[in-house]
C-alpha cells in the first residue's frame, strides 16, 4: 500500500485504538436497506463512521447517498436493518430526538427570521437559557465571519453567506455529528473551492464528525479523511482518498473517481501478459518517442495520437493502440505551450507505465 493511504488510515484508526467512547464509532449502519415502493434506494449497507472524522458519501445521483444521510438525520426510516448513533439504536427516533444536525442542499433558512434568529432557533426550541443563547449565537456567527449580517433576512444575503448561516445554525447546537447534503452544489467554482478549505478548517476546529454527501469526486478527495463510494444503493468501496484513487476496488470506482483507463482481459494479456482486466490512471503513463526502450518493470504499448485536449496545466492525449484499444494519457505542461502540445496530434508514439500502477479489477 502506498504511504499516503496508510497514513490516512492511521488517522482514522486512532480514536478506536485510544479506546474512546463506544469504541470511537459515531455512526453505524447494520445491514440497512431502504425501499420506496418497488425501487431499492439503499441495499444492505454496512458502514462504520468514526468519531471526529470527515467522512464523505460519494456517488452519482440515485446511488442512495442522500437517502443514507436522511436516515441518519431521521427524515427516513430504514426498511430493514439498524442505524446506531454513538452506541444507541435510533432507527425509530424522530429527527428532533437525535443528536445530529443537517446543512441542507437548499440551506432551508427560515425566510421570516433574521440571520441571528435563524442561528438561535435550535437553542430556543431546546429552551437553553437566554444569556447562554446569545453568547453561543455570537460565537457561531463569529466562526463563519457573519457578525455584521446578524440583523439581515436571508433574502438579503448572497449564496455563500446563506451557506455560512446554515452552517452556523447547525453547529451552534454542538451536535455529535454534522450532516451536509451537497452544501456547495449551488455555489460557483471559485467560492466552492474556498468553502472546501474553510469547511475542513472548521471541522478540525470543532472536532466533530462531518458526514458529507457529494457527487463531486474532487470535493470528496480534497476534504475527506475517508470516503465511501456508492452505486445503485450499495457501497462499492470505503477507504482514504488515496486508497480509493490509487487502488479502486471496482471498475465503477475507477471510472467514477477521476479519469481512468479500463483495459479488458484480452488487451491486458496482449500488453502485459497478465490475464485479468486492470485500470490505469492517465497520469501514470509516460508518452515517449517511438524508439525509446522500456525500463525493467515497465510495460510498453505503441499507438497513434488521435486527439489532443489542452487543459492549461495539463494536456490530455487520446492514443489509439496499434493492436486495438484506446488509452488516455495526461502530461503536465511543464515547458510546452498549447501549440507544441497540439503538434503531437497524429504522431506515432510509445506509451510506458510501471507494472505497479496496474490495478486489477473485476470488470
Amino acid at each position, binding site marked *: 500500500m502506498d504511504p499516503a493511504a496508510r497514513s490516512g488510515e492511521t488517522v482514522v484508526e486512532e480514536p478506536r485504538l485510544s479506546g474512546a467512547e463506544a469504541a470511537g464509532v459515531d455512526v453505524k449502519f447494520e445491514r440497512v436497506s431502504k425501499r420506496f415502493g418497488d425501487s431499492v434506494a439503499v441495499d444492505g449497507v454496512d458502514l462504520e463512521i468514526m468519531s471526529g472524522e470527515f467522512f464523505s458519501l460519494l456517488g452519482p445521483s440515485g446511488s442512495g447517498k442522500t437517502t443514507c444521510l436522511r436516515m441518519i438525520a431521521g*427524515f427516513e426510516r430504514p426498511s430493514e436493518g439498524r442505524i446506531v448513533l454513538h452506541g444507541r439504536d435510533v432507527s425509530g427516533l424522530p429527527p428532533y430526538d437525535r443528536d445530529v444536525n443537517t446543512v441542507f442542499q*437548499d440551506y432551508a433558512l427560515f425566510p421570516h427570521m433574521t440571520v441571528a434568529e435563524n442561528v438561535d432557533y435550535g437553542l430556543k426550541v431546546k429552551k437553553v437559557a437566554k444569556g447562554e443563547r446569545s453568547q453561543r449565537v455570537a460565537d457561531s456567527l463569529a466562526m463563519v465571519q457573519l457578525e455584521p449580517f446578524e440583523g439581515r433576512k436571508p433574502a438579503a444575503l448572497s449564496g455563500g453567506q446563506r451557506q455560512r448561516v446554515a452552517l452556523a445554525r447547525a453547529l451552534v447546537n454542538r451536535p455529535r455529528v454534522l450532516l451536509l447534503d451537497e452544501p456547495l452544489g449551488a455555489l460557483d467554482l471559485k467560492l466552492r473551492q474556498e468553502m472546501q478549505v474553510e469547511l475542513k478548517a472548521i471541522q478540525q476546529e470543532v472536532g466533530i464528525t462531518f458526514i458529507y454527501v457529494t457527487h463531486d469526486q474532487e470535493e470528496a478527495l480534497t476534504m475527506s479523511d475517508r470516503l465511501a463510494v456508492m452505486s445503485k444503493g450499495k457501497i462499492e468501496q470505503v477507504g482514504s482518498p488515496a486508497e480509493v484513487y490509487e487502488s479502486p476496488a471496482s471498475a465503477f470506482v475507477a471510472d467514477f473517481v477521476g479519469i481512468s483507463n479500463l483495459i479488458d482481459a484480452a488487451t491486458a494479456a496482449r500488453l502485459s501478459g497478465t490475464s485479468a482486466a486492470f485500470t490505469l490512471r492517465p497520469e501514470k503513463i509516460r508518452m515517449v518517442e517511438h524508439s525509446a526502450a522500456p525500463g525493467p518493470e515497465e510495460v510498453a504499448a505503441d499507438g497513434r495520437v488521435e486527439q489532443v485536449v489542452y487543459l492549461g496545466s495539463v494536456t490530455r492525449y487520446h492514443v489509439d493502440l496499434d493492436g486495438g484499444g484506446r488509452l488516455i494519457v495526461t502530461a503536465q505542461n511543464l515547458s510546452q505551450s498549447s501549440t507544441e502540445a497540439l503538434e503531437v496530434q497524429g504522431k506515432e508514439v510509445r506509451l510506458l507505465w510501471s507494472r505497479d500502477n496496474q490495478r486489477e479489477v473485476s470488470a
Partner: protein
Amino acid sequence: MRTPSNVEPRAVRIGMRIGTGVVLAFLYVPLFVIVLYAFNAAQSQSWPIEEFTTKWFGIAWRNGQIRDALGNSVKAALSAMSIALVLGSLAAFAVHRFRFFGRETVSFLLVLPLALPGIVTGMALNAAINFGGQIFGLSFSLFTIILGHATFCIVVVFNNVIARLRRMSGSLVEASQDLGADGWQTFKYVLLPHLRTALVAGGLLAFALSFDEIIVTNFTSGTEITLPKWIFNNLRLPNQRPQVNVVAFAVILASFIPVYIAQRLTEDRRDG
C-alpha cells in the same frame, strides 16, 4: 417602464388605454351611480340629481329592520369565516402533507363548490336542511345560513393556504425538526408565520364573500334577514329606495375593503 413604449406603436398604446378605460367604466359606473343616489335628497330616483344630502344614512341607521339584518350579516360572515379558516387550512395541510388514496379527488371536491352554480348549492342545502329537520330537528336559522356560507368560504381559505404551502420549500419543516423542534413548535415558529398572510387574506375574502351573498342565503335562511336579502326584498318598494341605496353603499364598502387588503397581503414579496 420605458420598454413597452419603445416596442408598441403609438396607435396601439392609445387603443389599449381606451380599451382599459371602457372595461373599467363598464365594471364601475353602475356602482358609482348607486353610491351617487345614496346622497340624493329626493325620494324618487330622477336624473339629474337636484339636491345632495346625507339624511338617508341617519334614517337607515335608525331602521330596526336594517340593524337586525346588519347584525345577522356580520355574525354570519364572522362565523363562516372562522369555520372556513379552521377547516380550510386543515384540509390544505392534509392534502399537502400526506399522500393518500384519492388525494387529487379530495382536492378537486374541495374546490368544486366555487364553480358550482349558487342556485344548485342552495337547492341542495335547502333539501338537506329539510331532511335534517325531519331527522333531528334542524330548522332554518342563522346557523343554517352560516353552514351554507361555509361551503364556499372553505374553498377560499383552502386555495390560499395550499398555494402558500406549495411555494414553501419542504426542507423548512425538516430543518425545524432537525434543530430539535417538535410538531407543535414547528407549527408555531415556522409554519404559522409562513402562512399568516395567506390566512388573513383567505379569511378576509371569505368574510367579503359571505357578507354580500344572496342566492345560497335565500335557500338557507328561512325567515332570517341579512343585508343583501333586505335589499332584495325592498328593492321594489319606491319609498324604500333611498335607504336601499345607502345599504348597498355599505355592502360595497364592506366587500371592497377586505378584498383590497387581501390582495395587498398576497402580493409576492421577497421575504414573504
